[in-house]
């Protein structure tokens, strides 16, 4: 076991973890942050996406060791069910979730884009979001929701 201090959603958490534990497990099993989901465990689907120092990462293949001193942000930092953040509200308005399993990852990848580029065009959104997969097929609504926050309606039907 190793002692680690992770900074998650703005607060420092002292943890005792297996030295090879990926971030996703620490978030879900040790910190009770169940927003990020386990999808494939291979960094191929994006359900586990969180932000590390402003960059979207697949938390299922990101080791906890090495994250000390970095800012980890999960979907829980964007808002709550009672008070959803602007991006979350847009996902609700556009009914972007069907089963919802991919949505936490989608939100965090989109959030990372919007913080770097508040007004991305649709092509940029599509390119940026391409690595996160949705089995229900709500990609077009997800793109619409992000476009809404980006300040244009988006042409996706």
């Amino acid at each position, binding site marked *: 076991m190793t002692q680690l201090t992770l900074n998650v959603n703005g607060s420092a958490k002292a943890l005792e973890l297996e*030295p*090879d*534990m*990926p971030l996703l497990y620490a978030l879900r099993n040790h910190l009770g942050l169940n927003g990020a989901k386990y999808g494939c*465990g*291979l*960094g*191929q689907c994006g359900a586990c996406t969180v932000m*590390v*120092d402003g*960059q*979207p*990462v*697949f938390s*299922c*293949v*990101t*080791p*906890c*060791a*090495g994250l000390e001193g970095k800012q980890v942000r999960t979907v829980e930092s964007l808002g709550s069910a009672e008070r959803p953040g602007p991006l979350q509200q847009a996902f609700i308005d556009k009914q972007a979730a069907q089963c919802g399993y991919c949505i936490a990852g989608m939100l965090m990848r989109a959030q990372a884009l919007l913080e770097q580029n508040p007004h991305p065009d649709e*092509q940029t959104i599509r*390119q940026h979001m*391409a*690595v996160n997969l949705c089995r229900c097929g709500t990609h077009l609504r997800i793109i619409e929701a992000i476009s809404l926050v980006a300040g244009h309606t988006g042409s996706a039907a």
Partner: protein
Amino acid sequence: MKSRRLWTGVAALALMGATGAAMLMWRPAIAPIERPQRFDAAQVQRGARVVEAGDCAVCHTRPGGQYLAGGLPLVTPFGTLYSTNITPDPQTGIGSWSLPAFERAMREGISRDGHFLYPAFPYVHYRRMTDADIADAYAYLMSGPAVDSPAQQNHMNFPMNIRPLVSFWNLLFLHGDVLTPAAQQPSAWNRGRYLVDGPGHCAGCHSPLNLIGAEQSGEYLAGGSVDGWDAPSLLGMARRANPWRQDQLVRYLRAEVVEGHGTAAGPMLPVSLGLARLPISDAQAIAEYLLSLQSVATVKEIHADATNVAATDQSPGALLFTSSCAGCHASAAPMRVIDGRPALAHTSALQSPSARNFLKTVLEGIPAIPGEPGPVMPPFAASLDNQQLTALASYLRQQATPGQPWTDLSSTIEAMRQEAK
């Protein structure tokens, strides 16, 4: 009297020099034509293959852009160039180019209007193509849809922003005639050499470049670099410690995952996807030619059996492998068992004397290409810090080639992070 004669001589020499330089740096325009409308269908079909073998679309199509409409930035040590529109649009493409104008561009690097093209356009290789192939490529390009897409402004540094200076570069490096088959070699070998040296322009990346961006003579296919990737030497591939067999190389060239070597990534990925669209005989011919090339230098690579990650191995590199890589690359991972993917220790990236391709692949991953099959790997640039990358690379290198560690890992990783900015 004497001094006057001297001055006349100097003036005459200066005039001759100036005239010579002007002749060297000036090329006439070739008259524009109406876009030709009709080409023989079989010729157009042959031309499609030539254009694919020449990798024209790899540079002349930008991501998300229209096919062959240009606009891809090419970052060179001399500034940034943008590829141009080679669709038959009369204003912004090559729609008003006659076949002689096209052939002059392909063989001498001169645009229809007489301006010098930069040697990033591989006319030093295309000049070795047959007349028939060039005419076929012309027919194919002129038959495609015209796209209105004006050339973007290049950002070349002084003095390379002065195009006529390319004439001096040409004087030094523009040579080589149309390739003719070597009588003593089989036809597949000849076809392979033609594809490699002509349209395929492999040496453009796989040979080291000199200070002014020309392939170094005497270092043909001895390895170079492109976009931060190591373009490995293509010499002595059959006799390395981790040798290439013909069938392996054919599959690699066609974008497959190959046991014992891995798969094409980085700038080689679009090249191999293009080769996969050509008849398999072309990749077979290239493999036959390349495997016949001998290495001058002795390659010191040592083949090692893949060792599984021992459960007791608590080294930082081994722990990182377990948390970040094992899901796909451990010997029991489904991808390995079901898909038959090679052990990392066997990949050319880990066997190479340079750590670059391994590090590049880990940092950037292998992106999915819409509509193409092929392996996908996530990027780890934001998931692993430099210390972790160093530990992971050292650990995997030790497994691949025991006793031959990469020595410059930290500085290479630091440099690559800077390049990515």
